[in-house]
Structure formats: structure tokens, C-alpha cells
């Protein structure tokens, strides 16, 4: 990646640490991904994207900026990409999946904070992530206490705008969120110096819906047995959705799905059909957090679905209604779709529980692993309700609370293998 060194230097990265990070990332990717057997050919594109993770895509972002476009960093599935792209911007889901940058963050954040937030803030503080350095500003939200308050601190290092996501889904909350969407549209217009027209917004709604539909198609294929794609590979695709060019990404995912459809037709799978099928439910997994998937899929089981922000919550139906042709109607359609996401930041959030049960059935899961990041209070507390509901349905459930470190890998492996023994 020597050809990018100058670009990295220009955007102000700490080159020495960045090299160390890339080296470590390459090694992990090799161990976790390239050792898999029988991968779909269509994964080559995604391997390529990872190999160029800090190269080609950053180059594209920098070129976009040179042409006057904005780059907006986001952290959450509640920030509407439709509006960012309608204002001629590019939205990128930011880095927050590595242990590497956590010590940087712990100089200004409490240790008892979720690893995703610490990792992200550390990337910015340590100048290790080119996505952060390429972003003009960040669009944060209020979906958890940790992020809500960390944005204020991050604002000292990069301009950070905050959208309020309400905490209930009553009529007044819908009103508030719609107003927040409108305010965000105005913010984007001001930053980009453009006026968002219904034509462009309509086009971007279709663009993002197409991305959602491609992911939905991929996940539909994961309902088959034998499974045509590993959980690790599917997880990677979901992760890449957050920062790759949406048009290219959608076309590549659809190409892969064509291949997977053939596999399904021919009854060809990545693993024998008897392998236990696991539904993962809970917190997001940002690149390179493949810890849980790797343990599960090297223990003889496979993951068939992620009910997470880097999974179904990202593309969950209904998609944004494409019928309105005026801005107000479009913004309302956007607000409605996003507020339909079933995040534990809402009280109550019982729809999520029904959905987990539905998914467990649809994906023919033999068991559910409830995955939470350490100190993620909302998902951790919601577990109790999920447990009661799944117990009632007779669906086996294992709770895993972990961070990005490797120190508990041995223990997790024991628990997961024990769980697999229990359900098989």
C-alpha cells in the first residue's frame, strides 16, 4: 500500500501506528477469512475492498472532497444516508471495532465504557483512522448514554452534530424525530451549500432502498439449508455496506446473490447441513470485530443471521416509502422508516423480541446467541425480557458479554462449545 503513504501523510495520520494497525488487520483478516473453505467466488470483491480499506476508498473520498463534496461520518443506523447523499455528500460508517485504539481513548474517557465508543474516539485522538481524517464532520445521535456524552468530547477534535433519537415511539416522539430529520436536512444543506430537491431526494431514497433490498436478498438466501455462505462472510458484507460506494456495493452484492442462488438450487453449501445454525442478536460488530463469528464458526457451527445494527437492523423492512414526491412527504417517509428500527434505546421495545422469535424460526436457528458489548446497558438490560420470551418459546439462548480484547477468548470458546453441545 506504499502508493497511499503520501495521501495518509497529507491527511495527518500517525504513519507509524497506522502501519502497525494495517499489519495487524491484514494478519487477522488472513487468519479469520482466508482460512475458510468453499467460499463463494463473489467474495473476492469484498476481500479486495478490505485489502484496500484505507487505500482506494479513502482516495475516492478525497477526490470527492476536492470536487467540493462533503464527507460525513456516522456511527449509527438512525442517521439517514438519504439526506447526506441528497446533499451531494458521502456518508461513511466510522471505525470503532478495534482494541488497538482503546488506550488512546482511555486518557479522556472512563474505562467502564463500551469498546465501540472507546475505539472510535481513540482512532480520532491517535490519528490512526483515515476515515475520521477524511470526514468534514460527524453526525452523532442519542441512542445511548455513552455515545450521547462522548460526542460532546469528540466535538473538541472534529465538528460533531447531534440528532436526537427519542426514547419512546408515541405520536409526540414521532413528531420530535421528524423535526430532527428536518433539522438535519437543513444542516446538510447549509454545510454542502445545496438545496435538496424532491427529485434528488427521491433518487437517493431509491438508491438506499436498493442497498437495503440487496442486503435483504442476501439474508433471505441465508434461510436456506445447506447454507450457501458463511456467517463471517455475510457479516463482512454488512460491515462494508457502511462505507463502500452504495451503487457499486449494491451491484456487487447482487452479483454475489446470483451466485448464491445457484448454490442453493444445486444444494451446495459452505458447511454440512447438520451443522448447528445460530442466530446472533444484539450489539453491532464494526470491522475488524469478527471475534464471535470466528469462535462460533471454528467450533463446528455457523451463523445464519445477525439481528444487530450491522445486520438486519440496517436494512430492515419496510424500506422508505418511495411514493411521496414532495420534500415534506419524503422526509416523513424517511422518519417513519428509521423510527421503525427496533433498537433497545426505546422503551418499550417489545417488537424486537417478537422479531427475534420470528427470525429464529425463519432462519431455522438451532439457538440464539445474545451478543452484547461490555457496558452497553440497553442491550444488556433488555436481555432479561428476551430471555423470558425465548424460554417460553423453547428457543435455546446463550448470553455473551464481551469487549474487543482477546483475553476472554478461551472462556468464550468453552461457553460456546458447551452451548453447541447442549443444543445438538
Amino acid at each position, binding site marked *: 500500500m506504499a502508493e497511499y503513504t503520501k495521501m495518509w501523510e497529507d491527511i495527518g495520520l500517525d504513519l507509524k501506528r497506522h502501519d502497525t494497525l494495517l499489519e495487524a488487520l491484514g494478519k487477522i483478516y488472513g487468519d479469520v477469512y482466508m482460512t475458510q473453505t468453499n467460499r463463494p467466488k463473489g467474495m473476492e470483491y469484498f476481500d479486495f475492498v478490505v485489502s484496500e480499506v484505507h487505500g482506494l476508498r479513502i482516495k475516492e473520498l478525497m477526490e470527492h472532497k476536492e470536487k467540493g463534496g462533503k464527507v460525513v461520518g456516522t456511527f449509527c443506523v438512525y442517521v439517514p444516508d438519504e439526506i447526506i447523499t441528497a446533499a451531494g455528500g458521502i456518508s461513511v460508517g466510522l471505525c470503532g471495532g478495534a482494541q488497538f485504539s482503546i*488506550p488512546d481513548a*482511555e*486518557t*479522556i474517557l472512563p*474505562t467502564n465504557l463500551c469498546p465501540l465508543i472507546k475505539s472510535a474516539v481513540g482512532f480520532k485522538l491517535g490519528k490512526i483512522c483515515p476515515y475520521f481524517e477524511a470526514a468534514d464532520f460527524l453526525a452523532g445521535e442519542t441512542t445511548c448514554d455513552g455515545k450521547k456524552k462522548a460526542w460532546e468530547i469528540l466535538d473538541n477534535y472534529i465538528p460533531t452534530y447531534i440528532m436526537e433519537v427519542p426514547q419512546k415511539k408515541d405520536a409526540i416522539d414521532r413528531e420530535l424525530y421528524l423535526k430532527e430529520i428536518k433539522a438535519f436536512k437543513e444542516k446538510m444543506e447549509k454545510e454542502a451549500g445545496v438545496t435538496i430537491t424532491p427529485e434528488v431526494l427521491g433518487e437517493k431514497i431509491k438508491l438506499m432502498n436498493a442497498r437495503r433490498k440487496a442486503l435483504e436478498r442476501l439474508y433471505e438466501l441465508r434461510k436456506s439449508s445447506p447454507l450457501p455462505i458463511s456467517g463471517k462472510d455475510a457479516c463482512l458484507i454488512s460491515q462494508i455496506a457502511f462505507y463502500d460506494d452504495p451503487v457499486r456495493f449494491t451491484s456487487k452484492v447482487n452479483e454475489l446473490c446470483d451466485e448464491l442462488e445457484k448454490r442453493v438450487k444445486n444444494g451446495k453449501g459452505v458447511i454440512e447441513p447438520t451443522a448447528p445454525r445460530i442466530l446472533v442478536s444484539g450489539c453491532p460488530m464494526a470491522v475488524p470485530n469478527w471475534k464471535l463469528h470466528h469462535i462460533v464458526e471454528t467450533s463446528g457451527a455457523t451463523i445464519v443471521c445477525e439481528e444487530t445494527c450491522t445486520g438486519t437492523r440496517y436494512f430492515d423492512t419496510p424500506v422508505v416509502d418511495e411514493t411521496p414526491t414532495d420534500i415534506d412527504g419524503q422526509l416523513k417517509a424517511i422518519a417513519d422508516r428509521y423510527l421503525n428500527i427496533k433498537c433497545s434505546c426505546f422503551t418499550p421495545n417489545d417488537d424486537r423480541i417478537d422479531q427475534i422469535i420470528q427470525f429464529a424460526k425463519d432462519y431455522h436457528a438451532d439457538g440464539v446467541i445474545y451478543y452484547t458489548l461490555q457496558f452497553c446497558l440497553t442491550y444488556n438490560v433488555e436481555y432479561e425480557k428476551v430471555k423470558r420470551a425465548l424460554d417460553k418459546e423453547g428457543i435455546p439462548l446463550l448470553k455473551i458479554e464481551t469487549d474487543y480484547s*482477546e*483475553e*476472554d477468548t*478461551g*472462556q468464550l470458546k468453552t461457553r460456546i462449545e458447551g452451548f453447541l453441545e447442549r443444543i445438538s
Partner: protein
Amino acid sequence: MFAGIDVGSLVTKAVVLRDGKVAGYSIISSRTNPRKAGEQALEKAITNANCKREDIKCIVATGYGRSSFSFADKTVTELTCHATGAHYLNTEIRTVIDIGGQDSKVIKLDESGKMSDFAMNDKCAAGTGRFLEVMAQALEVGLDSMGEFSLKSDKPCSLSSICTVFAETEVISLIASGAKKKDIVAGLHMSIARRVGSMAKGLGLQKEIAFTGGVAKNSGVRSAFEEFLSVKFAPISEDPQIIGALGAALVASKF
């Protein structure tokens, strides 16, 4: 003459001052009885200083067990004592990193040697002397020889655990996987340096920096810190383990 006693969780230290200079000191284990350890350490230091108990005008106790030592005229925390002791030995010191048996501390000093700010570990043995002691046992390596041992490593193991319990498990599995002990020890030292070093960075690192406490005698931890923080520790002319007791004695001389 004045005396300072530093009753730590693992080790008790005593220093006797004569004419503002260290006349004698002692370092003994405090494991069984902190009260008795204080008295024994004092007696030993008095003997080493060639003086008598009656010669001591004032005694200041510090350390975890400071309030259990009943002969003290005054008690002061080890934060003030390490600052005072380090400043006495080198007036350029602005930051002290002290790692003792159960605490690790970073102390900032102003020009007069007064403590101006500090940070301490939370209630957890990570990054303390106790952490190293547990690991030495798991590795069957002498605690005192860990430093030299690790300096022979050219490829330190990467240890992800900061928790004493998890790290012990990790060390055992590393041994089982055939890793070299010197590399494991070097990895442990780096893990301490990262843990306590991050705390120091959070407080704001100012030069010169002194490293005190029992763990400062471990040359492996020293060099791990120097690498992690990209600094060189200032030399100090006394045993780093007695700086707290020395500071206590200095406080006694001004009391």
C-alpha cells in the same frame, strides 16, 4: 533525627534521617502483621543508622497501613511522601510514577516539590506489584529476576489481559503453547506499562519523570515504560522502593 515509615500492603519500609541525609533504612515484608512490621522496620533502620530510638524526634507514617502504626506522630498519604522524596533527590522531577504492591499512582509535582495532582488505579490489581507477583508464581520465575529475564526477549508476547485473573490464565496457556518465558515476561511488563502509562498520559506527562516503588527495581518494567511513553526516567540516587519512607521522614523533619 527523624524517621519515616511506609507500611505497604506487601512490604514495609523505614528511613532514618540525620542532618537531612539518609542515615539508614530497612525493607521488610509486612505480610503477617502490618503493625508489627512497622515497628520491626523502624528498629532495623535505627540499627542501620547507628542511633537509638530516643534520638528520633518525630515519626511520620505513610502507606496503606499508615493508621495501624501507632507510634507515628502524624500520618500522611504516600502520594505526598513520594512527591517529597523524589523532589528531595532531584528537584527537576515533575512527575512520579509509583507502583507498589496493590496501587499504582501517577503524581504531578510543582517546582517546590508539592504534589499538584495525581491519579490512581481503581480497585483492581491490574498494573500493580501484586499482578507481577502472581505472574511470577504462574511462570515459576523469581520475582527479582523478572527484569533481567525479560530484557533478553527480542519478541515480547502480546498479552491482551490487564485483569490479574485473566492474565494468569493467558500466561498459563502461553506456556502450554510453547512460548518462551522471557517473551511472556516481557509481554507482562509491556501490559503494565500500557496500563499505568495511559493513566500518566491522561494526567499529562511532564519531565523529568521518576519511577519509584518496589516495581521500579524491575529493569524490564522500566524499559517497557520508557518505550511506551517515549521518555527516559530520571536517575534517582536511592533505592526506589524507599522513596515513600524517605518522603515521610522529610515530612517529619518539617513537622
